């Protein structure tokens, strides 16, 4: 009788634990939906699927670390290491011309190639940086969020389609969309940040841009031609305005997913 109880007890306990695990996951998933954490979680769930070269910490780019992979899904606002380093060595001013591309100094740049510029009226203008624009120049379609829609940091800001590549551009901030533009305007969204404050700690600025773009062009080079061993950029060469047209044989979906951090 005792062995019966022990055996069946163990069996039912195991079943209970397994059911509880699945049940709890479902419950938490529903809670996440209700709390509108979906976008943030989708990003956190897929970030580890990016290749290691796409998850390099900003402080490795600037040379503060020899080798460091981001473990906070590029949300430097959560990162103690970043807080300590930013306090001790804030990045210097930098320069606006990076390898022939224009990166205005008054903007903050997201690792997914969106830029954010705080306006005097408290809103934030969001656009696509010079490298991003060349990747999806003259797109087949652009899908902007409706006015009043809410976007989340590292969630999807807007979608672009270029030569079969479905690109979602990552949002640099949390906020409500108050106006939409387009490539012809030079900006894509005007956003009212949540809580009236624009937190830019996770965005790159100033002297961080040059080493970042240097690394990005290396990644772009290997994405365009995976078989090549070459890692150098020709001196004095400037990226074409429409990279897709210049590289007709490349898998544009693979290139854009690499550069826009879409695993």
């Amino acid at each position, binding site marked *: 009788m005792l062995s019966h109880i022990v055996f069946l007890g163990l*069996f039912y306990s195991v079943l209970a*634990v*397994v059911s509880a695990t699945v049940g709890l996951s479902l419950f938490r*998933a529903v809670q996440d939906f209700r709390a509108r954490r979906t976008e943030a*979680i989708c990003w956190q769930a897929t970030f580890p*699927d990016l290749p290691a070269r796409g998850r390099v910490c900003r402080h490795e780019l600037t040379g503060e670390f020899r080798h460091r992979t981001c473990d906070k899904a590029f949300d430097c606002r959560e990162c103690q290491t970043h807080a300590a380093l930013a306090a001790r060595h804030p990045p210097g001013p930098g320069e606006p011309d990076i390898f022939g591309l224009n990166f205005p100094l008054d903007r903050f740049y997201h690792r997914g190639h969106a830029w954010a510029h705080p306006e005097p009226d408290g809103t934030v203008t969001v656009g696509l940086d010079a490298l991003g624009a060349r990747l999806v120049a003259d797109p087949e379609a652009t899908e902007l969020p409706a006015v009043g829609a809410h976007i989340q940091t590292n969630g999807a800001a807007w979608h672009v389609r270029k030569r079969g590549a479905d690109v979602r551009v990552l949002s640099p901030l949390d906020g409500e969309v108050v106006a939409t533009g387009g490539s012809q305007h030079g900006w894509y969204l005007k956003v009212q940040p949540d809580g009236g404050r624009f937190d830019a700690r996770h965005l790159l600025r100033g002297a961080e841009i040059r080493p970042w773009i240097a690394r990005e062009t290396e990644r772009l080079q290997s994405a365009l031609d995976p078989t090549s061993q070459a890692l150098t950029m020709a001196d004095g060469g400037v990226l074409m305005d429409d990279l897709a047209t210049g590289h007709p044989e490349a898998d544009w979906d693979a290139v854009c997913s690499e550069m826009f951090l879409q695993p």
Partner: protein
Amino acid sequence: MPDVDTQRMPRGVRRSSPRQFLLWILPWCALLAFGLYGAGLCLVKGLNQTNMDNRFAFGLWIFLDLTVIALGAGAFFTGFLLYIFKKNELKAVINSAVVIGFICYSGAVAALLVDVGQPLRFWFTFWHPNVHSMLTEVTFCISCYLTVLFIEYIPILLKNRKMRQVPSFLVFEFELHKLMPVLAGVGTFLSFFHQGSLGGLYGVLRARPFAFREGFAIWPSTFFLFILSAAAAGPAFILLTTWLVSKISRKPLVRPEVLPLLGRISGILLLAYILLKAIDTLVWINSTSPARGFAAHQFYAWKPFGAWILFVEIVAFGLLPALILLRRRLRQSTPWLVSAAGLVCLGIATNRFVLTIQTLALPTLPFDRFLTYLPSWQETATFLAVAAYGVLVYSLSFRYLTLFPQEKDLSC
């Protein structure tokens, strides 16, 4: 221009064209169809379609079931090492290991349903469990564990490129992944017991002094030896399959340090197993078997299973690959590493063979004779169906899911 098929593949990796893929899976589909026909005959006409009989009540199917379950142990053991021991290098192969485990266990269960005389009565074991029987334990544990493996397979499916576009799938996957260590722990617990009980099946047979072993409490030594050998075989099989898939797909799938790590884990466990197995065999030769009235060497007097089979199992397929896998220089050489892994898997298969086929071949009654058995084509076909099913599931998983997360890093 990505087409419908490419849109379902992981990004950033190359896969064969749809036509090439079709050419690959068609022969396996044909094999599956043929095998299902063989299995169907057994289900419809009865088990007289096999060459099993009242003396060889267990045959090819049981032998292969035990072998694939031991080889599929890589799923639980890799999960244990990764989620509980935090050996993060194994992230490179955990998805593949889970799929292989799922294939091995679901295939074994399917073969078992054909093997029993009344498959529709499978639930009787759950309704009238005999808690003293090892087979009851096996039934319960394997059912639970197959469920766990299925649950572990779901996140891999949900991360498919098309599936992950549905936000609710991704959120559920995220929450489930947070609790993965719990599932890994449950999987380890269940695997410990059913791998052991599969060994216990034979160790408790007082009628078969060849297989009977003393042990600890109700558990014969074969219980513990099976767990250890499964833990040794699992990583070796993952090593072998990873290498094979890499060869067939002609791409590097894991960083160069991953396979030698699997080899080292397998080697250490295999050495421990061989030592314990040697001790157990000596105890059996000198104590257990004589106590039941049989001198151990009597069993090896029956051709063709002479003492050479003991040597092959313990030395050629046991000690030898263990020593190879424990030498770093040899682990760095792929031919040595893969050959040793292959020998390990063969050794585990030999061990399962000895306990099923050889045990039943040996006579028990004093005036009885040694018996031979060769499987019928229907039996072989059924198991080929399982193998084909495995290849198909794995091929589809490899094409459309991320089984090797490091592949992207290695593709340029």
